């Protein structure tokens, strides 16, 4: 029964990882670039929520109403300036610039907010739970985050396949030159994709801040690697794969934690390396002829 519980808890936390991963996956799909500052951006969102709550006194749960649009705007602005300038130089420059951004953000947070841990106080919501049988307890917060992840992925899927901007994003992702010939300004499309990715990363950062404590270093120490591992395990360019990847990563971590608390993170990373060796194209993608 302990193992069933571990798997269920793993699925719950997997929703959080999928939420982290979908922004990374979207940006990679559109721009072919991995944003190494992704984890730090989630932490910035959590700190921003602290500020929003302190100023407006809204309940922490509702802080997303302000934080997500602010972050989407920051995403668009950052993409049109710094990231686009880096992209013009090439993929490797962009990689290095996002790494520099990550170091700047992490140390900026340390400078202004110290290295102390914080969390978003949501009162009794954090501990409210219901039980199945005698041994399995599911926290409402965890379930909410999982449902949120599914809703965000569904919304993103719908947006990409139906809306005008979604079609533009897919067109630019498939063939930038051809899209440009059809009159699409790919820089604006990149900006929209970045705005969406930053919005989802802000949601993930808020969910993380409610779920557990955060500090300036956790973005690179854990969140970036988890998001990346979820993307690779699930398979590139597949939003549902990202959900599967997040859940598999969460389950692996919880099963590892059952052996030894120190094995929790290691188990997830070993699963990632195994997938990399056996199925580098991820779980949900069929093997393609290279």
């Amino acid at each position: 029964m302990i193992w069933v519980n571990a798997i269920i808890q793993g699925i719950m936390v997997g929703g959080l990882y999928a939420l982290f991963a979908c922004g990374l996956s979207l940006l990679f799909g559109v721009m072919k670039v991995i944003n190494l500052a992704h984890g730090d951006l989630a932490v910035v969102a959590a700190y921003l929520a602290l500020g929003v709550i302190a100023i407006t006194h809204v309940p922490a749960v509702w802080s997303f109403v302000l934080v997500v649009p602010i972050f989407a705007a920051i995403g668009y602005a950052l993409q049109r300036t710094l990231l686009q300038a880096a992209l013009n130089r090439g993929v490797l420059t962009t990689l290095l610039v996002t790494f520099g951004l990550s170091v700047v953000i992490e140390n900026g947070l340390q400078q202004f907010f110290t290295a102390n841990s914080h969390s978003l106080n949501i009162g009794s919501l954090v501990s409210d739970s219901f039980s199945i049988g005698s041994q399995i307890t599911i926290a409402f917060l965890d379930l909410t985050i999982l449902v949120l992840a599914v809703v965000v992925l569904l919304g993103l899927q719908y947006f990409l396949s139906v809306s005008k901007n979604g079609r533009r994003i897919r067109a630019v992702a498939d063939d930038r030159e051809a899209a440009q010939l059809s009159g699409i300004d790919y820089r604006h499309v990149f900006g929209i994709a970045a705005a969406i990715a930053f919005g989802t990363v802000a949601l993930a950062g808020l969910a993380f801040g409610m779920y557990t404590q955060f500090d300036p270093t956790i973005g690179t120490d854990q969140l970036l690697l988890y998001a990346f591992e979820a993307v690779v395990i699930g398979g590139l360019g597949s939003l549902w794969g990202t959900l599967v990847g997040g859940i598999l990563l969460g389950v692996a971590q919880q099963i590892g934690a059952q052996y030894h608390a120190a094995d929790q993170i290691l188990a997830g990373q070993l699963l990632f390396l195994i997938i990399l060796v056996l199925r580098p194209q991820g779980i949900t993608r069929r093997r393609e002829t290279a």
Partner: protein
Amino acid sequence: MTGRHLEAAGAELPAIGGQPAGGVRVTRSRRSVIWVGVVAVALVAVLGYLPYIVFSSTTNLLVQFFLLLTMASMWNLLAGYAGLVSVGQQAFIGLGAYSVVILASHGTSPFTAIPVATAAGGAIGLPVWWLVSRLRSGYFAITMWVIASVCELIIIQVSSLGGGTGIALQGLNLSPTLLTAYTYWTALAVTVVVIAVIYVLLRSRLGLVLTAIRDDETGARSIGARVRSVQRLVFIVAAAGCSAAGALYAISQQFIVPSAAFSVSFSAEMIFITIIGGIGTIEGPFVGTIVFFVLQQTLSQDGAWYWIVLGIVAMAVAIWAPRGLWGLVTERLDIRLFPVGYWLWPAGQTARRRG
């Protein structure tokens, strides 16, 4: 009387001996490099004599300088020439450090353990390359980071290596003066060997392939350069070099903590130094290390600000001056301290081949 400088391997090159081919001469370098060699030897000799004339605080600072220069030069070879941007080279630094700790606890002198740790790092590099070689750009970078994290998590679980709290390096029972001097000479030797290996590698036939990859990886592939096998060699050399740096780090710190030995800030240092100095040139990491070192000595009291300034400068250089500070120098002065390219002399000009 200016020759056209050729560094891309894409151009058709006549025999290296400088035989005229249709009246065109190709020489290894434009000016004599003998004086550069003489200065280098003299500089190393002076540096080697330093422990007799300066205080140990100065040599200790220089040990830090040599460590940074070694790591940055290795990252430059990996990213600047072979196109492999890694943010996980701290895996090999940590493994090199722990190799020395393990060997020293079995009675080997930490100084004689350095070559063993270097070889071990290179040997571990081979299976790691097998794992990451199919990945491209961002995927390669971040998977290396995961591998460094896995190494750290495994070391933390080994209680005989001190677990997460760290372990003291044994076998350094020398007088403080001797220990500082030996550490300094070892650091100097490791740095000289690493720079020499890079220089020889880049002047060899493989160097042509590497410069071709640096300039255009797809182009290099299309003219039949063995890009993969050269990248594998460079990856293993960089793994060995970073292990040597890690071994040196262990000796200079004398106490190893996993979270510090496998810290991603090693990667940050290597990357920022190389970008600011000039990626894809041997001289770049020298310039970058000097700049980095001056900043470190003046700003390090302010903790986080030092990293913020470095990060912003590195981002700005990467975008607006991608060839770095050394690139700005060569644009104006056309100096090459480590000539690895070729000079093409058009027909009719009577340039003597020198260097």
